[in-house]
């Protein structure tokens, strides 16, 4: 009697073990004091293609977080999952305290979204388009009109609000899109490529506007962009996204630290140095303590590039000044080169060995 149930018991144990594994995998702890956007091991697969791979993201209230990556890195997929417009294959997300998969309406009531390539109903004015959005958010009458006037003013579109949207430029559409996202009085703003296809002045205006919004309303903003240099200035923190993975996260200086070159760079320019004098000047510069390498200018008159140990840059700069004075070199410029986000991005992707194939889901 005692021997007979063995196979059955083994099967049961296997089942239990399997169940336990599922349990364990499922128990993803979310931090208690979570910010408005939290994801843990958020993943999205399309067949064999992994668009988003175990993403852990935290966006705090009152900050602008930049999700940076090339086209096809998985930024839009991530955003759609945060809004409940795409279902994650695995992992959890919590946006303004709600699970976007289970309570999409609660999320969408509190999150303003500017889609990539935002569009409006042509044949309607900007104000009419916003009125429709207000109605969909359950706002009507004087309250809605006041709110619409307010957001139009905020994005500087009051003057053109009553003309047809098919007369708008790309930049105006983008600004109207931000107004549209603000109509519902959101506590989180998610902007997908807010600066793409906009002229440089328009970009500055939009980024200034975002800063003001954060300052005045304490919003949290998540923005995605593949134009790294453009958004570098406006983001409090950035996440570097490549092939569905977040490969670096932090402030731009943090990331420079993490993914920057081994040595710091200082550019020094001298007046009156011809091609012949360049080599002897380089010799002088090389003799300074802390300098690891000196690169000659590509053309006469351009500055020399001095590589130095990273923590010794201020000493090197002082030494450069002193040397120039004692050798009678007329110094015309000296500046430390901060690595751009583009450099950091390239290095980070390279360091993780992630070549991003274009054409994957954006």
């Amino acid at each position, binding site marked *: 009697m005692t021997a007979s149930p063995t196979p059955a018991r083994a099967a049961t144990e296997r089942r239990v073990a399997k169940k336990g594994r599922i349990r364990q995998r499922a128990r993803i702890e979310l931090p208690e004091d979570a910010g408005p956007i939290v994801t843990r091991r958020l993943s999205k697969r399309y067949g064999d293609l992994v668009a988003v791979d175990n993403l852990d993201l935290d966006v705090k209230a009152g900050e602008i977080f930049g999700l940076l990556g090339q086209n096809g890195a998985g930024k839009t997929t991530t955003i759609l999952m945060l809004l409940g417009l795409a279902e*994650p294959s695995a992992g959890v997300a919590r946006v303004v305290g709600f699970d976007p998969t289970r309570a999409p*309406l609660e999320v969408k009531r509190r999150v303003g979204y500017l889609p990539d390539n935002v569009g409006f109903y042509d044949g309607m004015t900007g104000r009419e388009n916003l009125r429709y959005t207000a109605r969909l958010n359950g706002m009507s009458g004087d309250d809605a009109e006041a709110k619409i006037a307010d957001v139009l003013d905020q994005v500087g579109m009051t003057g053109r609000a009553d003309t047809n949207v098919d007369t708008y430029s790309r930049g105006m559409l983008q600004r109207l899109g931000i107004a549209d996202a603000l109509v519902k009085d959101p506590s989180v703003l998610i902007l997908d490529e807010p600066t793409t296809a906009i002229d440089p002045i328009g970009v500055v205006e939009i980024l200034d506007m975002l800063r003001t919004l954060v300052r005045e309303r304490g919003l949290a903003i998540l923005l995605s962009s593949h134009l790294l240099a453009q958004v570098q200035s406006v983001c409090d923190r950035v996440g570097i996204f490549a092939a569905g993975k977040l490969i670096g996260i932090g402030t731009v200086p943090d990331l420079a630290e993490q993914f920057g070159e081994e040595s710091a760079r200082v550019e020094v320019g001298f007046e009156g140095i011809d091609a012949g004098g360049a080599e002897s000047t380089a010799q002088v510069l090389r003799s300074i303590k802390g300098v690891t390498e000196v690169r000659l200018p590509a053309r006469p008159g351009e500055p020399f590039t001095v590589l130095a140990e990273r923590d010794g840059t201020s000493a090197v700069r002082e030494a450069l000044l002193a040397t120039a004075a004692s050798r009678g070199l007329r110094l015309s410029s000296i500046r430390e080169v901060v690595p751009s986000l583009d450099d950091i991005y390239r290095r980070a992707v390279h360091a993780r060995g992630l070549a991003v194939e274009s054409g994957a889901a*954006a």
Partner: protein
Amino acid sequence: MSAQAGTAPALPDVAVRPDERHIRPGWITIAGKELADHLLSVRLYVLLVILGIAAVIPLYFVGEDVRSAATSASGYPAIFIYLFAYPPQGVNFGPLSFTVSSFVAIAAPLLGVAFGFDAVNGERHQGTLPRLLSQPIHRDDVINGKFAGALLAITLALAVVLAVITGFGMLRLGIVPRLDEIIRLVAWLAVTVLYVALWLAFGMLLSVVIRRAATSALVGFGLWLFIAMPFIGPLLVSLLGTFVASGATTQAEYASTVQWVARLLPGQVYAEASAALLRPTLTSVSASEIYSTQAQQQIPTLFSFDQSFALIIPHVVILFALTVGCFALAYARFMRQEVRA
């Protein structure tokens, strides 16, 4: 699957705060906007003119006939409805059955396709779909609202055309429709709306499946030409019918088989329903019975509205089922589609 299993246990209960704002269901807002769009669209007025012309020409000739026959027709109980259901004498238009109702049967599907073919792909093309879906509405509110808005616009358009015809008839004939006739006309309007709803659902299915509005318009109007115009589809179906019925032993059996094959086209189902509603003298929609009653030279009887309606309950059910099926297909496809273009 794994997402479900993965997320469920990990979620601490989040208090779902009931929103203090009273929010109207999203589909009503969307339907309202769609209706307003349709009522202001050039599309509607073009179609109204087409429909109006299609209805008024036969109406004019039938009106002439009725006037000239008025003396002999005195005492005939349903003369007003003659306007809609009978072809004019002495005007030959080839294969077209030249009645108001058959013209509406040809033109009405246009309304459905025209209001449906760009419902979803138009939003995609304009880039408004992601913005719309990021508002606090359910995804199906979009397709439900669009269907409801377009159907309401179509109903209004058809009602206007019907009212114009009725008014024209009253002027021409000097007869006021009786209650029974009004009921028949309203029922005919309802069945016509149902038939157009089928085409609308089909148009919306195209707009979900086909990404480019121009392509879905071509497919929709092409199929309309094929199915609703009496040249191609019905011709093929009647050929098929005679082929299938070639083994029939009696005339009645032959007629019945041909009719069953013809019913493969929803237009035939609608035409039968429409005939029963507009011709109180029609005591059967089955071809074999019509054949045998003709053979027996029965005394013409008039059906009351409820008797006529009882004849076409299966037709109404079929049209309704087809509409629901088409819409369900569009709905299911839309719910599974990716949001991004």
